């Protein structure tokens, strides 16, 4: 009798556990994506995470974001790196699917050359303006020109009218 009860209980528990496990298995998203076993690979994965934009957040990398898509992309990057991709290849995998917009650091290509060279050009331009300004001003800055005799006499007179 006891054995039967235990069997029933066990069966019910197993059934319930089966249900709950099944219910969770339906939605296979983990709340925290587990890190890779190999610390070197994991460090590489995290370095890549910091370069990828979370597409549904504002100005966050997938490393920092809590969003579901960010989690998914983190897992994908880990999968690629574990499968042997280099960092660049893992990044390219995502760029193939989402375009350049998924990169936080704009790539250097024809379309972004103005962006990357811009600051340098601006600096040169500003420097040129400043230099041109200095050139325009006469170079005899504060060079003392000695007084003529006439001026010396007048100066003495002004300083000491009694003499």
């Amino acid at each position, binding site marked *: 009798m006891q054995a039967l009860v235990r069997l029933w209980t066990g069966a019910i528990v197993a059934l319930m556990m089966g249900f709950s496990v099944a219910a*969770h298995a339906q939605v296979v998203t*983990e*709340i*925290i994506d*587990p*890190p890779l076993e190999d610390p070197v690979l994991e460090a590489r994965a995290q370095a890549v995470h910091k*370069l990828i*934009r979370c597409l549904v957040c*504002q*100005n*966050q*990398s997938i490393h*920092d974001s*809590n969003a579901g898509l960010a989690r998914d992309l983190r897992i994908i990057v880990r999968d690629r790196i574990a499968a042997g991709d280099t960092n660049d290849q893992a990044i390219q995998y995502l760029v193939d699917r989402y*375009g*350049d*917009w*998924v*990169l*936080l*650091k*704009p*790539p250097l290509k024809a*379309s*972004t050359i*103005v*962006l*990357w060279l*811009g*600051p340098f050009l*601006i*600096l040169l331009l*500003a*420097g040129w303006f*400043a230099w041109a*300004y*200095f050139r325009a*001003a*006469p170079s005899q*800055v*504060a060079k003392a020109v000695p007084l003529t005799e006439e001026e010396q006499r007048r100066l003495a007179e002004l300083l000491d*009218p009694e003499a």
Partner: protein
Amino acid sequence: MIAELGHFALILALVVAVVQGTVPLIGAQTRSAAWIAVARPAANAQFAFVAIAFAALTYSFVVSDFSVLAVAKNSHTLKPLMYKITGVWGNHEGSLLLWILILTLFGAAVAWFGTNLPPGLRARVLAVQSLIGVGFLSFILWTSNPFERVLEVPFEGNGLNPLLQDPGLAFHPPFLYLGYVGFSMAFSFAVAALIEGRVDPAWARWVRPWTLAAWTFLTIGIVLGSWWAYYELGWGGFWFWDPVENASFMPWLAGTALLHSAVVVERRDTLKSWTILLAILTFSLSLLGTFIVRSGILTSVHAFATDPERGYFILGFLVLVIGGSLILYAVRAPLLKSGGLFAPVSREGALVLNNLLLATATATVLLGTLYPLMLDLFTGKKVSVGGPFFEATFFPIMAPLLAAAVFGPMLPWKRGDLMGAFQRLRVAFFVSAGIALAVWAFVSGSSWLSTLGIALGAWLVAGSFASLAERIKLLRAPLTDSLSRAINMPRAAWGMTLAHTGLGIFLLGGTIMLTWQTESIQVMRPGETVTVAGYELTFQGVGNIPGPNYMAERALFSVSRNGEPFTNLLPEKRAYVSSSMATTEAGIKATWAGDLYAVIGDADGKGGWATRFFFKPFVHWMWIGASVMVLGGVVSLTDRRHRVGAPAQRRKTAIGPGQAPAPQMAGE
């Protein structure tokens, strides 16, 4: 009823603004004292009416009058009183009302405190200020009326974004607005000077306190925003190069440049044309920022709900104000004759370098912010410009500036000697190089970048101290002599020392924090322990705690150090009643060495919770450094010379032999 009063007050303000924008201008042109005299009472009246309107809106929020649309959309009866009040400016319409309140406040302040200004100039300044007000009041009344009524009054409001129910963030907008609306004053002064056709050292002296005040407020506003992001957003980030952050940073950079170039105009009567242009550009950047936030043209977490009609209105306004003032500049700039000449190596030269680098930095941030839009327009391609771009470009431009900032005060006006200045700075140089090298050698994890950051930060602090010591002749004269020199030193010089020192402290804190912070992400079950930076954090569990308008899941982590109990951290996840958004509140323990930072994430359904811990060393130095910078600004503002403006009328007596001339106005 109150809302209608507020609405009516705004209309009256607009009428006064139109009058104030035209009559004094004409009066200054025709030298009619009566017409000029309209400016001051009009400025007071305008401020009074806008203040009444603002009070009316605040009242509506406080009593939760949901018949007012803005209140219905953005408030909730369960919100604590403080956040009902701060909710007034947490939405598009209310924030515009705050904008115009501060604009008219500055106008009124010039009317009250600008008694030392020549009446003609003051009239022009107030008129220009008022014309800006006309634009904003029109914008508010036509497209963004905060007093619009709702015909079917809801029982409950739509609540406020829970992220904004936070003290740091609630006060961040007023300070920001005091800052970049405050730069409208420099703009008005510049345009008034262009209309007059004259810029002299006195002009620079009058502009300086207003620019300094705006700059100080803007610094507070930006730092408050960063500090809030640090403790609220769950991973301790404090700057994201988000378009709207950049929109507040650009006026700050330009305003800093303006502060420095105005000094050259004041002391040496040169760089006038550039300073006027800079004053116009600084406020133009503020206006551009306003446009970016409210037009929907760039995505940002800060952006208010967008409406193309509003975008066009603001753009039109921008074209009028900025385009008009720049054209005025182009036409009138040749009238501004330059004064003193100077050698490239001199204090003026250092300030020119300062302006050059700050202007480049500002342009770089502008380029990065607008580039995605420009590229999309011209080629249809989408690219995103995030933090890494700005880090790669902004810091290399700023680094030489920070190095040079220490030399500037050491060089004399007109012509200086670089080697001589360096001689006087050699102690500071060896101290900062020594510290940086010591850290590089003995602390693991150092990179050339972190070493450079520490070197520059220490250089700024040591160099500022060296400047101060030089000025008060420390160790070269008796101590009492040095002390009296220190006490009598102009406050502006103290302000400069404090501001540069504060910047150095900020840089040191930021470099150390970013280089040596540690992070640990894992799933934990109650009872488990994780060690971070020498602290053992044990997860005790999660409980449900109700708040005034939210339900929180609060986790308890008991923290011990070397086995000794140290503290408890209580991070939360809050679900707000009236919003689908949830917020995280980090559990932070501040220690002398840094912050211990804990975040609770989601449950995994199997008894575990996602947790994230950080240790952020020296993070307080960032906030302290920023505070010291603000202190520098405040101290500078109290300089006696700013209250003393136009020379008092001297008695016209002939100077006979033996008679001393009438005392000149105190100054440098």
